[in-house]
């Protein structure tokens, strides 16, 4: 077997079913570079769902526990990457959730190697694809918030890490907004809303939308005077940022304070413009229609909620034809049509 080390970064892989157990045995070796090679080979293997199944059912997952405390940072990084690949499949995610790996994994969020931290965030983000995963991560939310705040202090780590962090938070908050609200999330996210990267703006708005679902969150959004910032975001060039901002506004205008502030900020023309804009771009960019639909739906909902205020209703009555056009049968999207009909009904409502 002289030729087994053709690629120095990979460990030799045994044939068939022997491959995974053999590589995991290799992980027990004291030399760091052998472990590293074995991990690299495992990473290659883990793209195959069958191998993941074998790993999970063979109980090899628990062996990774030791590797989290490895003194070599590249071993830790590679271990996290392995988990990242395993969580790409549902069975891997479920296995990770039911294993005892989560607490040591969450310790690695504070690791001093940046690539290791990034991989941990990737794993956490994939875990939140499952509602059960998001549920398991709820206890971590204050810590992640702290992380977000810390990054703000030391001039942000990397964009990717922040995006992952925010996306994890939004998944968790969608499930239960209270932990994030308790750790003063709204004001923190308010700062992120004016970040220069559109990805961060989008994710921050998404978290805010998840937070503003509950009553307390709406109040906090009003109190922190985030609505002007959000209205600015409605003019953003990124359509998903627009959609998420519209979503936050949609939730916030449900309460009376939000309605008053929005009417004061004169949001109605902007929202109407967003609703009517799509007709012009009807043909172009079929791809964008998906997120466009969300934006239009959110805007319509926000308008509906605004129409409940007398002042808003008066203003919207002047613009009624536009909404009527939306609610007619020419609009092919069922949801938008229904939303527009609701809006028209609310606007025409008389006590």
């Amino acid at each position, binding site marked *: 077997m002289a030729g087994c080390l053709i690629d120095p970064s990979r460990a030799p892989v045994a044939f068939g079913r022997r491959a995974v157990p053999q590589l995991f045995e290799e992980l027990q070796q004291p030399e760091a570079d052998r472990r590293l090679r074995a991990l690299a080979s495992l990473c*290659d293997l883990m*793209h195959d769902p069958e191998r993941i199944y074998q790993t999970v059912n063979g109980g090899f997952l628990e062996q990774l526990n030791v590797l989290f405390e490895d003194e070599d940072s590249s071993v830790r990084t590679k271990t996290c990457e392995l988990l990242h690949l395993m969580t*790409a499949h549902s069975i891997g995610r479920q296995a990770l959730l039911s294993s005892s790996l989560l607490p040591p994994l969450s310790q690695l969020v504070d690791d001093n190697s940046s690539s290791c931290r990034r991989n941990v965030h990737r794993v956490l983000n*994939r875990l939140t694809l499952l509602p059960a995963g998001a549920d398991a991560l709820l206890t971590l939310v204050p810590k992640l918030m702290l992380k977000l705040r810390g990054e703000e202090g030391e001039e942000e780590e990397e964009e990717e890490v922040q995006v992952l962090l925010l996306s994890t938070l939004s998944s968790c908050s969608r499930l239960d907004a209270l932990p994030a609200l308790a750790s003063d999330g709204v004001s923190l996210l308010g700062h992120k809303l004016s970040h220069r990267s559109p990805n961060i703006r989008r994710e921050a708005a998404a978290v805010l939308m998840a937070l503003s679902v509950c009553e307390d969150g709406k109040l906090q959004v009003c109190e922190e005077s985030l609505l002007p910032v959000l209205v600015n975001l409605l003019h953003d060039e990124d359509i998903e940022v627009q959609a998420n901002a519209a979503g936050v506004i*949609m*939730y916030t205008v449900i309460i009376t304070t939000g309605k008053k502030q929005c009417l004061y900020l004169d949001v109605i023309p902007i929202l109407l413009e967003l609703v009517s804009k799509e007709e012009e771009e009807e043909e172009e960019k079929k791809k964008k229609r998906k997120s466009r*639909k969300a934006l239009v739906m*959110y805007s319509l*909902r926000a308008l509906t909620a605004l129409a409940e205020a007398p002042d808003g209703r008066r203003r919207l009555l002047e613009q009624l034809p536009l909404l009527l056009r939306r609610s007619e049968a020419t609009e092919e999207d069922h949801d938008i049509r229904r*939303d527009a009909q609701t809006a028209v009904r609310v606007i025409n409502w008389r006590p």
Partner: protein
Amino acid sequence: MAFVSQSHRAPNESYTFASRPRPVENRSKYREPPSEQTHSNYGNIMYDRRVVRGNTYAQLIIPTTAQPDPVEAQRQQENRRRAIARKRAREQFRPSTPEALQGRKHIDVQTELYLEELSDVIVATDVECQTDAFLDKPATPLFIPAKSGKDVETQIEEGELFDFDREVQPVLEVLVGKTIEQSLEEVMEEEELACLRAQQRAFEELRNNELAEVLRLQEQERRRSEEKGRRIAQQKEVLKKEKETAEKIAARAYTQQYLADLLPAVFTSLRSHGYFYDPVEKDIENHFFPWLMAEVNNSLEKRYTARELLDTIIHDVTRKRLKMFKELETQ
């Protein structure tokens, strides 16, 4: 083959130099290209460090260190110790005079007295001869290992040897197949994840949409129920007020009715009790009539007085007349 010497200059210290004696080198057989070695053998005396140049009075004799550096002192001490040790070692290894015989003893003797001068000078003649110049070294012949074993030969037919183009095919197929498989797996994985995310996104959008509607309706319901509560409270307030007003009106009517006959009765009774009077009449009655009565009494009394007076006068007159008449009668 460098200088076996120790030269060393410490800060704030005079220069010291030590050189170990060494034998003269023997020259090589062949003339070799001049190397740096010859250069080191003799040098310019002007640059020899052992030669003191310049004014010797200007030499720094005593180190002027006012305060010896402890580290330096330690190092010096160490050097000294090392030198002593070295000397001792050398003494040990030096072939010394053999031990004195039994019953004898070595003593130090000044040999001057026992020296003899060699007076007979042998006549010698100087002869010179010059060796040939060195030959240049001839080029080393190429090393050819001696042949060993026996020569044999085989016949190789067409297609018997390893043909790379053909043999590589299965290997290549496996390689390409594995690579494609791996990449397909990765692509499928990514597609699956993207699909999952898209589906989640769509679901989230719909959920947000409906959730907002639900929340809106909840809020509407809350507001309306609040409004309703307020309306009911308002209505109750109105009813209460109405009732109060009705009661007030009834009370007023009753009182009016009650008081309607009260007033005349009170007036009549008051009037009958004389609470309503004419001030002039009252004044006349109170002041005028008593005065008038008094005045009338006064005038009547005067009149009575006058009448009594008149009566008395008349009485007097009649009595006088009677008396006269009687006198007359009597007369």
